[in-house]
């Protein structure tokens, strides 16, 4: 999942980005509204965490311009303004959710996950395919009833494939959504992650779930 965090407080920006990255998200950050808008326009994010009071271009104006361009990326407004009119104004400008500072990192994570689920048209926090079950809230994976322990990056990759099950996901898409912002990405990083994932899934049940479509990419399917 790829997320953009636009927040002018450097401390908050860094901690939120670190927290989301450690939970398997690919995170881009921006400290002002203009750069944030440019990033949101030029990339395909699953969700945007957006502060309202920003230098150069405030969060609500950014959101309005994004929506005018037809960008439907889900946006979580992060703000110090907590009155009902503030919340209403934020939602009227096209925000999908609203989180008042100070907040718990767990709550931020849950809300960002919920927005990402909505990005793929699902409200269910449980993804299932054959005997594979993924609880996206608890971030737990089981196959044939046996729990499978995954690293954060492996989990993010599996969830991304599961959300797009039935579709072929290209290597570029995986790189963009799972490894975005990582300058030193090894050329075989995606392949090794897929390999490791196949191995862990195969331990519970040898029937293959992740299929390679030559020249196209990968697909999560039960065949």
């Amino acid at each position: 999942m790829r997320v953009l965090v636009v927040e002018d407080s450097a401390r908050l920006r860094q901690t939120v980005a670190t927290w989301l990255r450690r939970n398997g998200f690919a995170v881009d950050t921006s400290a002002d509204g203009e750069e944030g808008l440019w990033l949101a326009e030029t990339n395909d994010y699953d969700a945007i965490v957006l502060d309202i009071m920003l230098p150069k271009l405030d969060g609500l104006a950014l959101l309005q311009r994004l929506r005018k361009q037809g960008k439907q990326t889900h946006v979580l407004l992060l703000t110090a303004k907590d009155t009902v009119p503030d919340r209403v104004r934020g939602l009227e400008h096209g925000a999908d959710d609203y989180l008042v500072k100070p907040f718990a990192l767990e709550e931020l994570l849950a809300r960002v996950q919920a927005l990402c689920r909505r990005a793929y048209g699902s409200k269910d926090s449980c993804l299932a395919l054959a005997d594979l079950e993924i609880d996206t809230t608890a971030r737990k994976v089981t196959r044939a009833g046996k729990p499978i322990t995954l690293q954060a990056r492996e989990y993010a990759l599996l969830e991304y494939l599961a959300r797009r099950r039935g579709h072929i996901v290209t290597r570029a898409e995986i790189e963009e959504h799972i490894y975005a912002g990582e300058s030193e990405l090894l050329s075989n990083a995606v392949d090794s992650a897929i390999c490791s994932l196949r191995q862990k899934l195969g331990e519970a049940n040898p029937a293959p779930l992740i299929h390679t479509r030559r020249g196209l990419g990968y697909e999560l399917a039960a065949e």
Partner: protein
Amino acid sequence: MKTIRQQLTRKLLLTVGLLIGAGGLGVYLCARAALLAQFDTALRAKAQAITTLTERKGRRLEIEFSDEHMRGFEAGGRDFFELWQADEKPVERSRSLRDAHLPLRHGTLEAPLAWNLTLSNGQPGRAVGLKFRPQNSDDQPQDAAPADAILVVASLRHDLDRTLVTLQLVLAGSGLLLLAATALVVPRVLRRELTPLQRLAEEAERIDAASLSERFPTEGLPGELAPISARLNELLARLEDSFERERRFSSDVAHEFRTPVAELRSLAELAIKLPDARAANADEEVLAVALHMEAILTHLLALARGERGELSAQREHVALTPLVQDVCEQFKAKAAARQLAFNCCIPPAAAADTDPVLLRSILTNLVDNAVEYAPRGGTVDVEASANRGGFTLRVVNTVENLDERDLPHLFERFWREDAARSPDGHTGLGLSLARVFAQSIGCELSASFAGPARLALTLTQIKPKTSNQKTQQP
């Protein structure tokens, strides 16, 4: 709970009751005295008649008395008399007395003695007694020694007593009627006349912290209540102002503290949840957030105190030149680092009567802002002038993205040109605080454009006061 209406009613009724009682008693006593005087006059007349009928014949006294002439003295009559010689030897008495005697008491012929008595038949009566000298009969020798006689005449006082009782009843009845009418009318009149007070009380009851913008009516109020209503309205206006300030203060505090608290919380949470992700400078970051919060708090409290008029300015003779130069000196390095042209222009030996601490604080704030917000390569000019009429300090700096519409907002709390918090530790309270400080030392702080993209903040002394005068902001 006692009400004014009840108290007034009670006291009015008591007063009216006392007045009616005293008036009634006065009328009764006067009427009684008049009736007694009339009764006594009649008795005296009867006595007078008897004295004229009394003659001395030798050593004896005789009354030429007949029932026809003196009705009432006959047996069973209402009048009585008894005549004595001077040596108190009874001479004659009326038939109405039968075997009884009247008490022997007397005054003179000119001033007879009158008194109440109980007659032998047990009935109440009134008597007059007098001593007189009877005339001698025609056959009395002229040289006979004169001798006095004593006469007591009495009458039953049934009629008098009945009249007095009637009078008592009439007076008591009228008094009670008057009291009842007062008790009926007074509360109604009071209720009607105290309606404006009642309305005022109802209005006051409705007012709470959420309705401080309401005001008491001042039109159509009685003269006694109009000033109360006006004072209450002034009090409400002050209360509303004070509540509004407190509300704004709480809201500002809540709003401005949310971001640093969020920073602290996320830093701490991250350090707990992901100890390996803890940044090397995490402690410095926490300290920086704490110091920023402390600065906001200190400024907000100073601002609140200033707005409540709790800042006192200690005026003294201040040498402006070294003070301004000293403040400018503090910012020269920062200005140089930002490649700003920094000019400090102040005449030698400029002086003013003001509070040096607050003035330094205002100037530091203005210069700090100018050096902080002037774009790189811009200019900052600090100018000062002073004369007998007071002093003027001006800080002019280059600005960008600021126009005339922004000027009124410059002194608002937490107003920033681009709506974002400053990353440099500025609280957004400096100019608000500087203006409050300026007011407390009798100065005006204003913002204007001294040219294209040249913002000028000018501090002007309005009323120079005498030295060492302690003043308080209104």
